[in-house]
């Protein structure tokens, strides 16, 4: 009996991948000597960089080294007011009067300038935000440029997009964006707003102001009329001041559901239009007929892309029971191969957590998961001593009622559940206040379309995950917000009819 068990165990062990070899990746750091950064950044208002009224500045640091990169101006209510006035002036005097096809040319210029300076932007994005250089280079920056390029083309075609509706711009848009995709979110906000003829006051997140300020430089270079885009930096109160400003016609916000709810309440009873792109807790569902190896890659991409700082991250994994052992074994193996470390290294898979605050929040959730009785599994990889890092983490044996299965963690932490029937998994996937995205892995096309029609989520990825394109509308159901960004549908939130 015992020897048989031993034999079995040996067989099982033989299946395990071997990592104790000498095959190591040599460091492959991206050079940083070519980037142009200033010691101090001002507010970008009415086409000029101006000192903040408060006279205050805050540090922006590299989360991978905890070293200061630059000082950023802290705006106050007065600055917000100046920026809104500049945007209003530009709207009245130039932007709303300019022929749409000429407006388009400025947006095309911005797209081209981003393309030309793509390498610099991706290095700064990685230094300031902690995401791996591979992602900022291959995803964030090109997508940002493409977004401008795409919406530039819409500027003189709006009548075709909404036949018989005579679309008109709204006026001044106040836009507040998060720290997970700083430049890309700026592009998602600014490009459709400009294409539809609005002017903009944008506030980047306080931990990631730099690429938005580099974008301000690009906007200056593009010759865009002064005041059409204003970029003001600072903490939460700056955003609150924008939300409450009387001369803003539109608020577009991407960020947490809590803040989104506060904004919706704050503007209640006003004529301000609102778009909210909020949190998520996406179900990534693996059926037994799925191509398992591909699905494992999809799970990894779903939750560990951008350190899990993704509102549409596939943070809840549902595996059909019959393949659960295989999927989890392969997933654990794959976790071991992920490289966590210097975000500027081209081999790095998982970079730094964006801030100390976020690191603490993630670690808090790890404790909660363990205390709630879930089984925690982490990669055995080493993580740098300095900077903010978390090992890729799985929670096995979780249930629907666990906090780690219900709340958005916004980190590289995956809660795994199993299921038996399609009814069960639809019920579990939908039974959550969020509804931003979902993933389905199966070989059966007919099942994919069944799932896409039953899942209450704004984006469903089938046999893929975390795919974005300027032509593809993105946005949530339920408490994940409303309004869409991308594609034809992304024009609507910036127009009145």
């Amino acid at each position: 009996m015992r020897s048989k068990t031993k034999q079995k165990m040996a067989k099982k062990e033989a299946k395990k991948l071997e990592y104790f070899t000498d095959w190591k990746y040599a460091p492959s750091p991206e050079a940083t000597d070519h980037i142009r950064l200033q010691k101090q950044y001002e507010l970008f208002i009415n086409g000029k960089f101006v000192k903040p009224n408060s006279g205050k500045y805050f540090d922006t640091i590299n989360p991978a080294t905890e070293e200061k990169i630059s000082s950023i101006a802290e705006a106050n209510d007065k600055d917000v007011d100046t920026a809104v006035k500049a945007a209003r002036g530009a709207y009245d005097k130039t932007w709303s009067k300019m022929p749409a096809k000429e407006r388009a040319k400025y947006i095309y210029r911005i797209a081209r300038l981003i393309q030309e300076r793509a390498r610099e932007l991706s290095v700064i994005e990685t230094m300031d935000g902690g995401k791996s250089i591979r992602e900022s280079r291959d995803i964030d920056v090109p997508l940002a440029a493409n977004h401008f390029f795409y919406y530039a083309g819409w500027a003189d075609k709006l009548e075709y997009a909404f036949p018989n509706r005579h679309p008109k711009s709204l006026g001044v848009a106040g836009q507040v964006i998060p720290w997970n995709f700083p430049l890309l979110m700026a592009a998602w906000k600014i490009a459709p707003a400009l294409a539809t003829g609005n002017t903009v006051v944008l506030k980047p997140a306080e931990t990631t102001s730099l690429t938005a300020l580099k974008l301000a430089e690009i906007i200056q270079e593009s010759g865009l009329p002064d005041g059409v885009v204003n970029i003001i930096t600072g903490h939460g109160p700056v955003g609150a001041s924008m939300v409450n400003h009387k001369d803003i016609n539109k608020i577009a916000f991407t960020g947490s559901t809590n803040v989104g709810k506060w904004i919706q309440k704050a503007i209640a009873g006003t004529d301000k239009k609102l778009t909210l792109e909020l949190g998520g807790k996406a179900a990534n569902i693996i059926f037994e007929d799925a191509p398992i190896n591909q699905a494992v890659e999809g799970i990894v991409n779903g939750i560990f892309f951008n350190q899990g700082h993704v509102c549409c991250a596939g943070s809840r994994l549902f595996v059909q029971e019959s393949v659960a052992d295989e999927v989890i074994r392969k997933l654990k193996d794959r976790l071991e191969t992920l490289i966590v470390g210097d975000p500027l290294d081209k081999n790095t898979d998982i970079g730094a957590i964006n801030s100390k605050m976020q690191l603490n929040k993630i670690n808090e959730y790890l404790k909660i998961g363990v205390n709630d009785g879930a089984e925690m599994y982490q990669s055995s990889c080493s993580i740098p001593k300095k900077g903010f890092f978390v090992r890729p983490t799985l929670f096995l044996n979780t249930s629907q009622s666990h906090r780690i299965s219900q709340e958005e963690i916004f980190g590289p932490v995956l809660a795994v559940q199993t299921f038996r029937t399609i009814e069960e998994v639809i019920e579990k996937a939908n039974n959550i206040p969020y509804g931003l995205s979902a993933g389905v892995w199966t070989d059966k096309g007919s099942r994919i379309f069944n799932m896409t029609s039953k899942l209450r989520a704004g984006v469903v990825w089938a046999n893929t995950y975390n795919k974005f394109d300027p032509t593809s509308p993105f946005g949530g159901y339920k408490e994940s917000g409303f309004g869409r960004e991308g594609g034809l549908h992304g024009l609507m939130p910036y127009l009145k009819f």
Partner: protein
Amino acid sequence: MERIEVLKTYKIFIGGQFPRTESGRYYPLKLKNNMTVNVSLSSRKDFRNSVVAARAAFSGWSSRAAFNRGQILYRIAEMLEGRKEQFLEELKQLGYTATAAKKEVEQSIDRLVYYAGWCDKYQQLFSAVNPVATSHFNFSVPEPMGVVAILADESTALLGLVSVVAPCIAGGNTCIVLASESKPTCSITFAEVIATSDVPGGVVNIVTGNRKELHAHFSSHMDVNAVINCNAEKDFNKTIGENASLNVKRVFTWNKNWSDEKEQGPYYITDLQEIKTTWHPIENIGVSGIKY
């Protein structure tokens, strides 16, 4: 001593190359500065070579990402803007006033930018998910027709050609264009712009010659999917229509005033598109009602 100017030999444009006509024939064109250009009088064989090039380029061009096609059309506009002066001079030599020449070039550039923008947008306007009564996912999308033969506007040197070629290639088609017979030089210089704009060889082919001789070949070739005549010629149109029936070519007569801003739009793209409908079953098991 005065420097002697180097004059350009105007060739034709096939498969990304600039040959002279295989026939060796030419027709003289007198410019305003009294110089003469010996324009290629292209033959049926030149046209047939162009169709081979266009067909070969179709697969690659139509499967490019729409976004990429948009970037390339925008690049053509960038290149044209950069060579504006050259076109202004050429147009003057063809008899344009300075004002008319400026308008023609600028409208051509803007039209290219306009269609660059359409490359990845018309699909969203003209596709549909069809609500069929059975449990099927059913959708229709436009797809390019293939190789398009174009008899360009006779009255303009550049704008008429650009106004037809741009929507044609924006939608993923490839084409063979017969340039304006009386104003052919700008078309060939425009071919040089295309050749330096990342447009794959064979996507746009431009020949010069005699419309009376070539229109029958343009419309009868069995590997051409659509033919566009931009001129009002009733007798030609009858031949073209009859020849087209040989392989059910789509025929369009686009005799337009191309300087009118209204003569641009997504319908110039969709005219050169087929609609493809796909049916796919939807499994219908699971919760009957959605509860959340």
